[in-house]
């Protein structure tokens, strides 16, 4: 039987959750044996195929993030929100207290050492949404793995359970919000 397929993406995140995934150390071999990791920043494969499990790190803060999220949601059966940004909004949502225009001007014009700054307008660039939000505000999320980052053991537990066809329950010892 074919191994279940997994794809991971990172949106507006720091990559820390993926680093925590790698913190499973040699157990990555168990994961690779139990599941096929397709598109992922780790494999550097860009195209997302139809997969069984989609894992998303980071909050949705621009239209590109949204596009990637919706694409993955459409191509996977079970969607996992990995980490606090994906599940709680966390760091990216700090900017939600301020109007978007102010945020951009602070970043590109009013920073010390910037002379003659301007907010980039290139049509190729992703456009920031008014607010950075957790995944569930846009798509259905099946599993939330909280943590900043989630402990490697929690990620290992969730992935192996999913590979075995079960919905993982997070034991209290592996539940953390920071």
């Amino acid at each position, binding site marked *: 039987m074919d191994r279940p397929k997994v794809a991971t993406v990172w949106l507006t995140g720091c990559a820390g959750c993926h680093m925590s995934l790698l913190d499973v150390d040699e157990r990555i071999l168990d994961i690779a044996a139990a599941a096929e990791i397709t598109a992922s920043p780790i494999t550097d494969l860009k195209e997302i195929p139809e997969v069984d499990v989609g894992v998303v790190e980071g909050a949705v803060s621009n239209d590109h993030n949204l596009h990637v999220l919706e694409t993955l949601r459409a191509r996977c059966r079970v969607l996992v929100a990995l980490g*606090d940004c994906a599940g*709680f909004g966390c*760091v990216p*949502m700090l900017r939600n*207290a301020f109007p978007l225009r102010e945020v951009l001007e602070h970043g590109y014009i009013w920073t010390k050492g910037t002379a003659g700054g301007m907010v980039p307008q290139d049509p190729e660039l992703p456009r920031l949404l008014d607010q950075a939000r957790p995944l569930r505000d846009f798509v259905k*999320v099946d599993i939330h793995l909280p943590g*900043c980052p989630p402990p490697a053991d929690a990620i290992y537990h969730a992935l192996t359970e999913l590979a075995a066809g079960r919905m993982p329950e997070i034991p*209290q010892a592996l539940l*953390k*919000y920071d």
Partner: protein
Amino acid sequence: MSDMKLTIDGREVTGRAGQTLLEVCEAHGIHVPTLCHHPLLTDVGACRLCVVEVEGDRRLNTACTTPARDGMVVRTDTERLRRQRVMTLELLFSERNHICPFCAQSGHCELQDLGYAFGMTHPRYPYLFPRLRPDTSSPYFVMEPNRCVLCGRCVRACDEVAGVHALDFGGRGSRQEVVADRGVPIGESSCTACGVCVEVCPTGALFEKRSAYWVRERDLPAVATTCPGCGVGCRFEAVLKDGRIVRHQSASDAPVNGPLLCAKGRFGLLQEGRSRLRAPLARRDGELREVGWPEAISEVSERLRSIRPACRIGGVISARLPGEALYQFQKFLRQAVGTDRVATFDACDLRVRRAAARQFLRDGASAPVECGLGVVEEADAFLIVGADLAETHPVVAAWVLRAVYRRQVPLIVVGSRRTGLGEIADVWLRPRRQKEGAVLNGLLKLLTDGDGVEGRGLSREAGVRAEDLTRAAQVYAGARAPLILYGQDLTRYGDPGPVVTLMRLATEKGGTADGRLRLCGLAREASSAGALEVGAVSDFDAEGVDLDEMECLYLVVGDAEVPLDGPALERLRGVPFLIVQASHRSALTDLADVVLPDLAWPEREGTFVNTEGRAQDVRRVLTPPAGARDDLEVFAELGGAFGKALARGVAEAQREMAGEGLLTENSHG
């Protein structure tokens, strides 16, 4: 107290009349999750997490506000309750911006703990993202509304424990928030920075600036000790991590202050900006240079031995130091050096009170025994004379405020200094300089004679309005248990007369249950009340003419801040040999000929006797730096040079003092 029988989770338990369901559960080890509940505060049922099912009622009831009744059948842990509680918790998480990864409270937060306990992986409700800014205007703590769950513990604590009521709710519904006064920055409000709110806050909505992000642990070791700040004698616990004090919190054993502390004791003691003295200093060629202890000791002892007559040597010690240090200092001076010119820095106040007590006794009264601080709670009027309590004894000021706000106890203040309590007083008499005595005599006359003529004459002399004096007398006369509190502004001129008048005033009213006058002179420092008893206060007037005769002055200040103005410093400069024993550098140590590095308050052991005469122990919290020495050790070294054996440590000193019957429960005055 009738027993009642209830069934909780299938178990038959008994409860007492007046108990809530929560109290019954707790008494029987049945866990019910709570958040807005706090053992020190009245329950309000705000958070809705303690909901339980009561048979016969289709609604869920909050256990903390539901009275237990005989025959109740209660369930605390059903599927319905679990669903309800988790939804409530998730609503709390989504209402404001709770971001654990960079919250000062993460690791020791009650909201976070509930999330873990309920197995919450995410709040299902969309975030509101309210726009909330932290208020950092207080010097000691931050109000961070993004982390607030509106439990109201801070509001209740500020009202019920601190007595200030600076915090309350402003706005309603989703706009509700905790505000200071009418919505001003907390640092500009009537907040006294006592910190009770910070201590009871379950989340990171109120956190201390100094220890923020320093500690994630919940259970750290703590040492309970007595505060050196003033004569009230509060107990607190110093919480420790890596050999440093993280913060102060209320002690479980605090017979005087309970859960209340003041800004100075909770926060101020931990703010030390002066530089620490780590080695003795001696003047060489006009400059202070570091020397070793043996050299410093021999220089001091040789100089002292060379001065004849010995009465040209005087010593002044701060009553902020434990009683053992005061006792040994006077013993060193009297028995080793041979001078009886010893005093504390607040000696004037102590002498005046001793003189007043003697005069009162001479005039035929029985021993005037001042009451303890517990009498504040039963007072139905306050007469505060010559004291700025909010400055000198903030915890007592808080009790007075609490009584005034919550029980509408009338307040009379006599004092020309502008004080917070004066401004809210029912009657505030502001006499001319040194005319407090006239005001008090006027009160006494109005009280005893009824005929207002002499009273009005006295009011003119004092520079207060006759109507105000009359009203004050009426308030005092109309009270059954009025309490008089007085402070150092009344005694600073050296005249015991006004204090005697207060004693007479208090005698006009019934005493306490144990036969004491409803009168309390608040001793200034932690050891002031015991200073006379241990012999540390003779007639030596270090500020007056006696100073000009001195060949040598030995000042022991510890870590006290001795406020000396220009003229005082100039006079000290004129003393031929000045020894200063202190823990930190100051204008005073810069004047000295020899500086002996002393311990700071967290390094001391010993006993404080508070204003009630209650002896409480001081425990060492921190290890002193290598070069600093305990006062007793220094006095013993110096005493040795004079051939006099003095106690080498606190325990030995305490044995000697016990042998002389000193520092046991006593009453002063």
